[in-house]
């Protein structure tokens, strides 16, 4: 019986210790991604969630043909209606330390020669969608000229015409760092 009580107390104490799972901000882990997020509500407990992840080293090193930095913005439409998008009417700005830079949502207009060199599948992936269906997740790709992308983005401002005011995508863990 004393053995049982000892085992029980040990189990309770071990359970109370912090688990080594998850990604606490002060664990010294290298390569932590910065996650910029924003939400827009659409009815009861439903929302559209916008997320961009940037890893510092890769963002500094990688570019498309040395000309454009690429950000992948994931849009999770949790609403019951389509989210209409338009490459002509929507706009995205990336905030850097030296100022805001307008990103391009349409690589075919920004760099036609580069666009034409891509294969059909890649062009299909990179084309700005016309809408995002209810309960679906899509990615859009934002292209920023390398010459303007100095340092890490502080945030993104994404204006979707059908949503009204622009969304501010911020690093939500910044305050905790």
């Amino acid at each position, binding site marked *: 019986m004393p053995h049982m009580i000892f085992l029980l107390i040990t189990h309770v104490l071990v359970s109370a210790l912090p688990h080594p799972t998850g990604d606490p901000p002060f664990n010294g882990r290298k390569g932590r991604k910065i996650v910029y997020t924003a939400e827009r509500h659409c009815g009861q407990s439903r929302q559209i969630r916008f997320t961009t992840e940037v890893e510092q080293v890769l963002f500094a090193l990688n570019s498309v043909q040395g000309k454009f930095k690429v950000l992948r913005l994931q849009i999770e439409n949790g609403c019951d209606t389509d989210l209409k998008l338009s490459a002509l009417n929507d706009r995205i700005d990336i905030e850097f330390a030296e100022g805001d830079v307008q990103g391009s949502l349409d690589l*075919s207009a920004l760099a036609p020669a580069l666009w*034409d060199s891509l294969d*059909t599948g890649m*062009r*299909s992936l990179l*084309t700005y*969608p*016309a809408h995002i269906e209810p309960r679906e997740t899509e990615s859009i790709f934002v292209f920023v000229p390398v010459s303007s992308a100095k340092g890490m983005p502080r945030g993104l401002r994404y204006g979707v015409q059908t949503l009204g005011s622009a969304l501010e995508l911020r690093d939500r863990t910044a305050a905790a760092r």
Partner: protein
Amino acid sequence: MLVRVWELLVNLLSSRPGTQVLQPVLALGTMFVSLQVLLYEWLERQSGVVLSLGTYLRSYLFKQGAVGFIAIVIVAGIVGRSAQQANPQSWRKRLANTLPSLRRTAVVVAVLAVAAVVIGALSPRQVQSIRVRFFGTPTFDKYALAYLLYELNGQQRSWYYEINFDEFRPAELTTVERETCQRDSRPLLCYAKAQAAGRPFIGITSDSLGEDHFWQNDGAVSVISTDEVNPGQSPRLYEYLAHAVVVNSMMIHLNAFCGGFPRQAPGEQRESYGGLFQFVPRRQALRPAILAAHLSPTEEELLIKCFGPDYVRVASRVVALEWLRTDPIQSELERGFGIKP
């Protein structure tokens, strides 16, 4: 009765001098006819289609049977001769016969190899899977159509519909492709060709096709439109879509793998018998054609010649749309997609 006739014939041939030379010819002829009868029955059972004698004589199976039969007769002749010579002989004679017997073996192998190549060349063509993509945002439930296409995939094993759920946008094209298609009189078909990249492809849209009402086809590429379909009338929208996809798939397979489907003479057509590949003289004339859709004997012959009995059996079943009107599928359409029968 037939046995009696056969006996009389055999007696006649064996009793009369000079007729013995006809015996092997008659034997071979009988074997050939028997083989072809067996092949005909097999083909009929496999395809579920009653073939006319003329159709069968033009079919790949008759030709394959003939080639195989000739090869076997030649091989049997060579082996038979060598068996006759295989009487007890001295080792000197056997050694002297080694070279001719090697030659005979080589001839047998060559005959069988040539027959195998010819039979292979006469075999029905293998068809490729067809990619399906939506052009623009459809006014119907694309997932309901996907369900029907998956049901069609379940009807056969040799090829499939592969669906890309990302709606096509002209912005995906290269600069040259976009400019070319904008100038084209049939821009949607032009987009489809650019997307197809030489492989079978069907684009489905709710937009108008301009001068054409229901679909456009060029080679291995088709575009189907629901713009002219009245969803309140029979056949309903999904019946129309299933019919259009099945018919266009056959046209694509015939174009891509068998020299094309039978086109009518150019010019305005006023009459129709409701053939699958026939010009529809009036928009409303497609409705009865869908409701009574079937393969005509000419179409069966064409498909069996090109793709074999299995393809024809599946095609005649799916084109009739009986599978779509069954209770399980109708109830899944209603339960899963809110589409009422």
